[in-house]
C-alpha cells in the first residue's frame, strides 16, 4: 500500500486557509466579497453625489429621510420634503452637500452589526475562518467578540433605528402613489419603492435582536400569559429562517431603487405611470 507522509497528527494540513476539502469552498466567500464590495462602492458613490435622488414623487431610499435639502442641486428633494428645510450655511465647505451622509450611518450600522452579515464578512473579509473546515487566516490571538468587537453587542440599538426607518420608508412608498397637484396615481417607481419597503421589512422582522426583544427573551411564551408573545415570536421566526435571503435581496433592491430613481431624475429613462 502507498503511504503519504504528512507532518500533522490526523493528516490535517496546517497554515492559513488550509483544508482537506475538495470542493470549491472559496466560491461562497468570494461571491460574498464581490457582492458586498460592489454594493458598498455603489452606495458610497451614490451617497456622495448629493443630486438626482428625487424624481417627483419618488425619493431614493439612500436619501430618506431628507433632513436638509440643497435646492441648487439637480434632482434634489423639494423644501417641503425636507424635515428641517434648506441646507444650513454653517455646513463645512469641505463636506459634500449630500442628505444621504446624515442618515446612512443608521442603516449601515444595522447591517454592519447584523448577526448574518457578521458571518458573511468574518468569513469573506477577515477569513475567520474563510469557510467551514478551512483554517483561519489569522493566528491564535483570537478573541472573538470579547474585545475589539464588543460593540457588536449594541446591534439592538441599530435595530431600533431600523424600525424607525421602516416607518419612514413606508411613508415614502405611500407618497409615491401621490403627486402634488395631480392626485393619486401609480408608476413603476411606486412599485419599486413599495417592494423596497417590503424587502426591508422582511429583513428587519427577521433580525435576531428583533426576535429576542418581541418575545424570544422570555422563557414562557405559550399558555395563558404569553400566547400573543408566542405569536409575535413565531412571526419573527418565520422571517428569521429567511434572514440571509432577505439580507441579500433587500441590499440589492435598495441599490436598484436608487439606480431607478436616479435614472428617472436624470431623464435617462421615462417612468411609466398613470400621471403622464
Amino acid at each position, binding site marked *: *500500500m*502507498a*503511504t*503519504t*507522509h*504528512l*507532518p*500533522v*497528527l*490526523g*493528516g*490535517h494540513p*496546517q497554515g492559513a486557509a488550509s*483544508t*482537506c*476539502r*475538495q*470542493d470549491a469552498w472559496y466560491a461562497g466567500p468570494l461571491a460574498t466579497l464581490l457582492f458586498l464590495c460592489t454594493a458598498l462602492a455603489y452606495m458610497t458613490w451614490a451617497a456622495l453625489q448629493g443630486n438626482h435622488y428625487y424624481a417627483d414623487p419618488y425619493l431614493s431610499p439612500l436619501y430618506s429621510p431628507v433632513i436638509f435639502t440643497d435646492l441648487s442641486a439637480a434632482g434634489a428633494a423639494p423644501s417641503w420634503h425636507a424635515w428641517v428645510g434648506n441646507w444650513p450655511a454653517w455646513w463645512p465647505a469641505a463636506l459634500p452637500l449630500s442628505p444621504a451622509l446624515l442618515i446612512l450611518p443608521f442603516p449601515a450600522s444595522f447591517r454592519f452589526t447584523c*448577526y448574518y452579515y*457578521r*458571518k458573511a464578512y*468574518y*468569513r469573506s473579509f477577515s477569513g*475567520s*475562518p474563510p469557510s*467551514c*473546515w478551512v*483554517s*483561519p487566516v489569522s493566528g*491564535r490571538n*483570537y*478573541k*472573538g*467578540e*470579547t474585545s475589539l*468587537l*464588543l460593540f457588536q*453587542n*449594541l*446591534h*439592538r440599538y441599530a435595530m431600533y433605528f431600523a424600525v424607525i426607518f421602516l416607518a419612514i420608508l413606508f411613508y415614502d412608498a405611500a407618497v409615491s402613489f401621490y403627486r402634488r397637484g395631480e392626485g393619486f396615481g401609480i408608476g413603476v417607481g411606486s412599485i419599486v419603492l413599495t417592494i423596497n419597503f417590503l424587502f426591508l421589512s422582511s429583513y428587519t422582522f427577521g433580525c*435576531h*435582536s428583533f426576535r*429576542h426583544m418581541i418575545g*424570544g*427573551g422570555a*422563557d*414562557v*411564551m*405559550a*399558555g395563558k400569559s404569553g400566547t400573543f408573545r*408566542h405569536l409575535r415570536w413565531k412571526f419573527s421566526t418565520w422571517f*428569521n*429562517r429567511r*434572514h440571509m435571503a432577505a439580507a441579500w435581496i433587500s441590499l440589492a433592491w435598495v441599490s436598484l431603487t436608487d439606480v431607478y430613481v436616479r435614472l428617472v431624475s436624470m431623464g435617462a429613462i421615462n417612468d411609466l405611470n398613470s400621471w403622464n
Partner: protein
Amino acid sequence: MANRHFRVWRGDHSGGDFKDYNVEVSEGMVVLDVLHKIQAEHAGDLAIRWNCKAGKCGSCSMEINGRPRLGCMTRMNSFDPTATITVQPMKAFPVVRDLVTDVSWNYAQNKRIAPFKPKAPEADGSHRMYQDDVDRVQEFRKCIECFMCQDTCHILRDRGKQSEFIGPRFMIRVAGLEMNPLDDDDRVPELRHEFGSGMCNITRCCTEVCPEGINITDNGIIPMKERVVDRYFDPVLIAARALLGRKKRTKPKGTHEVQEVLEVPRPHEVPGTQ
C-alpha cells in the same frame, strides 16, 4: 460492484500516515461499510468507533474529504465515482488510534453545566409547561452528541481555545436549560464568564454540520448572546433594572471542581507530532 480508492489516516498519538486502500464497493454501501470491509480484507487492526449504523448514536464521527460526517450516514453514491475518498479522525480532539479520538473533553464540559433546577410547584402541586414552550427547547434534545459541531467550531478546531469556549454542543445544552420555563437557575453570568459566549463569532459552521438539523446558531447561541446583552451591555435595561430594584446576578457562581479536566492535550500539542 465498483473499485474505489480510499485514503485512511492510520496512526496514534505519536504520529501516523495516510494509507491507501482499493476496495470493491457495492450498491447501497455507506463509508462505514467500506471501512468495515477494509478491516475485514486489508487492515484487521483499523480502529473505528461505531455502534448503531443508523445515525442515532453519534459514535462514527470522522472527517470525510475534509468535512466532519457520520460514517454510517455518508452514502458512497454521494461521491464522484472516480474520486479518491479521504478519511481522517476529527481534528479538534486528540487521536487515540486511527479514526478514534478522545472526546472526553466534552464530557468534562457537560459536568460544568449546573443541572436542571426545578421551580417550586404551582398551588395544586403541579409543574406545568405548555407545549409551545416544550417545542422550543425540545429541538436541542435532538442532539446525538456526535461532537461534529465541536470539531467544526474553529475556536476549538483551529485556535486551541478549549479553556475559553465551551463549544456549540454545550451552548445549546445551556440554552435548553436557560429557556426552560420550569428551570429556576440563572445561567447568564456563567454563559459570559465561564462558557465564553462572546468567543463565538457566529460563522454558523456548527449549524451546517449538525446531522440532526438543529439550528444551533439561530435558536441556541444567538438567543444566549442576546440574553448576555440584556444583562451586561444594554444600558437601558441595566438602568431600568436599577430603577425598579430588580438586580440580577452578574458574577458567576463558584468554580466547579472539574476545571482541571479542561487541559486535555490537543493533537498538535502532543510532543513529537508537529
